[in-house]
């Protein structure tokens, strides 16, 4: 990556980081720290939801301009992403509104000006710190919005300045790195440069509160895993009385599988950040707990260190396990009476068929038919409960090989329907449990083969797109399509849009696919035009982080 891009990345990160930090500070003054933390959490979620959208936005000429952002969001096809964007946008408005008319608005605005200034790589670093107020304060809401608008245009100008010298993808990544910074981690780095002594005191108190009140564990370690700093929640998770008992100890002491640490350190040294990791820990008192954490490399007291946020998910994992065990046992126990229904109805037909009239025999046939259908429903439930129960290990999988096997498995259906399936020239290698990826594609392709329009041979296209952090696989068909009002319902278990006579099946398939995709850090959705066809898509994280 060239120097210009580095400057761009640093400037944008700084801009957003400081802007956010100021806004949080102001909010904290107005609302108190507990409410502010809720908003930070919401904002982080909204940013993550908006992420796929933002990644595509950078490819468009309008860049980050705020007014066109609204239009672009309105044009967004994926409802989930759209909702995330709208929340994000809503937040920007709320924040501006909250600040408007307040004493801090002046300061905020001057800082944004400075940040805009700092964002321009042509300006030398020394001028960044000359905090001159060059524009008057906000008088109206419109002014505040105009302010943000021009800020957006400034970012756009910068974007255009650099687009000729770097690949679009690299730029997209840089921009997104900035957008994606979670509020809390940005706050920590940008708190280093407050403008007045009182504010310094304020921001230190604020971040100290944030650190101590956090419902998640926050921990700083050196690059060998020795603990330098930890908050109270961290000690609580590990069943220690005080965080001071953690300082100086090695994280490895608490890992049930200490060898996982080396691979983790190796990866974070490559990518600076690792997210959504799951580990089993042994607490001070010897209890095994499950936690997820995200880490990133930071500068701490002049050294390169690891900042991690740790969440205890033991209880959540236990409840999920209980639910799955219940579904598993229930589906088993329900099979026993089914065997009787099916067996006895057949028995009646075989040995007493002559004693029954036509209606009587028909009723027996229908009992058998329904018993077998219920067996399929139970199999679906069983399969659904197994996704969480059986932990399948992610491995490097060639998507092309998976699709070849799926086509082989479905060859009878493909032959019968005279379907044509087209694949792109190249397909990536992903890190995923192979059997699960096979299940996803088998389900989506067999649906495309099943829900065909009369008199039209299925044409199915599988493709892929590279997003900043995910691969996205669309599976397109020319089938009967789905009305928009049903696009959520089809993912619910046993929900069907057609009778069994029209299209056979149980309605469990897409639910299973959705659970697989989501439990491996991806998303799934559909866009469709009734009568013309549907495109189901799902995403897979590029690294093994989310698995």
């Amino acid at each position: 990556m060239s120097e210009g891009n580095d400057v761009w990345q640093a400037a944008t990160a700084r801009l957003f980081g400081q802007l956010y930090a100021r806004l949080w500070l102001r909010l904290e003054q107005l609302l108190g720290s507990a409410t502010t933390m809720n908003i930070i959490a919401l904002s982080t979620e909204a940013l993550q939801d908006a992420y796929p959208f933002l990644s595509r936005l950078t490819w468009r000429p309008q860049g980050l301009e705020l007014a066109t952002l609204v239009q672009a969001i309105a044009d967004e096809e994926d409802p989930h992403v759209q909702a995330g964007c709208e929340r994000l946008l809503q937040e920007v408005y709320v924040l501006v509104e909250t600040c408007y008319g307040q004493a801090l608005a002046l300061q905020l605005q001057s800082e944004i000006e400075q940040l805009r200034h700092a964002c321009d790589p042509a300006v030398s670093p020394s001028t960044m710190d000359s905090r001159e107020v060059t524009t008057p304060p906000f008088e109206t809401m419109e002014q505040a919005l105009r302010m943000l608008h021009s800020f957006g245009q400034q970012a756009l100008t910068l974007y255009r300045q650099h687009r000729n010298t770097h690949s679009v993808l690299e730029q997209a990544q840089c921009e997104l790195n900035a957008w994606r910074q979670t509020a809390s981690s940005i706050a920590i780095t940008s708190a280093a440069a407050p403008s007045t002594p009182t504010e310094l005191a304020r921001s230190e108190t604020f971040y100290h509160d944030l650190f101590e009140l956090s419902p998640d564990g926050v921990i700083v370690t050196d690059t060998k895993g020795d603990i330098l700093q930890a908050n109270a929640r961290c000690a609580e998770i590990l069943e220690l009385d005080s965080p001071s008992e953690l300082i100086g100890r090695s994280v490895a002491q608490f890992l049930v599988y200490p060898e996982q640490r080396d691979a983790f350190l190796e990866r974070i040294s490559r990518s600076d950040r690792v997210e959504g990791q799951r580990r089993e820990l042994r607490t001070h008192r010897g209890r095994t707990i499950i936690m997820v954490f995200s880490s990133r490399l930071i500068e701490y007291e002049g050294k390169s260190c690891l900042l991690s946020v740790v969440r205890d998910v033991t209880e959540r994992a236990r409840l999920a396990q209980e639910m799955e065990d219940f579904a598993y046992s229930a589906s088993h126990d329900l099979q026993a009476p089914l065997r009787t229904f099916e067996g006895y109805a057949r028995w009646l037909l075989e040995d007493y068929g002559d004693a029954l009239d036509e209606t009587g025999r028909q009723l027996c046939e229908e009992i058998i038919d329904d018993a077998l259908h219920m067996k399929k429903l139970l199999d679906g439930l069983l399969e659904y409960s197994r996704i969480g129960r059986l932990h399948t290990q992610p491995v490097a999988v060639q998507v092309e090989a998976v699709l070849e096997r799926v086509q082989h498995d479905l060859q009878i259906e493909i032959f019968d329907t005279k379907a044509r399936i087209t694949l792109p020239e190249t397909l990536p290698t992903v890190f995923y449990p192979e059997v699960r990826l096979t299940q996803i594609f088998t389900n989506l392709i067999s649906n495309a083969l099943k829900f065909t329009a009369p008199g039209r041979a299925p044409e199915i296209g599988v493709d892929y797109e590279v997003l900043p952090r995910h691969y996205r696989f669309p599976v397109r068909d020319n089938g009967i399509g789905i009305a928009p009002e049903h696009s959520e319902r089809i993912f619910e278990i046993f929900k069907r849009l057609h009778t069994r006579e029209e299209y056979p099946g149980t309605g469990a398939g897409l639910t299973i696919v959705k659970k697989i995709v989501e439990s491996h850090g991806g998303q799934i959705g559909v866009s469709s035009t009734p009568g013309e066809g549907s495109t189901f898509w799902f995403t897979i994280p590029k690294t093994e982080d989310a698995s």
Partner: protein
Amino acid sequence: MSQQTVLLVEDNPRDVRLTQRAFKQAQLTYELQVVRDGDEALAYLNREGKYQEPTESPRPNVILLDLNLPRMGGHEVLKRVKQDPRFQYIPIIVLTTSGRSDDVRLAYEHGANAYLLKPVEFTRFTEVVEQLGKFWLETVELPPAV
């Protein structure tokens, strides 16, 4: 050769009826002895209580064992029979609705000779019973019942 005996350990009377019918349909003419739980199974093998008469309760050549039994579960029955030097040679075939991998592994660990799933569809169940009879009662050589 004396008639071969199969001991069916099954608590659900409807499953018992279906198994008897499947034996009949598969034309397996073996004597099917039925006990309803683990305690009865052990009493049968030990010739205790109502199973004292050898002609009425002959030694089984093969045991068909359901896992989901009241009180003493199928795994426990399996373990006890396989640990008893007098009975450990008797082939035990687990016949169950549970496809749970833990159940399968545990059953083989305790010495089960085969693990079969009961299909819901009766015609397929008959096929399973037929294959089972053809193999365990007609194909393999079994030690004589003591």
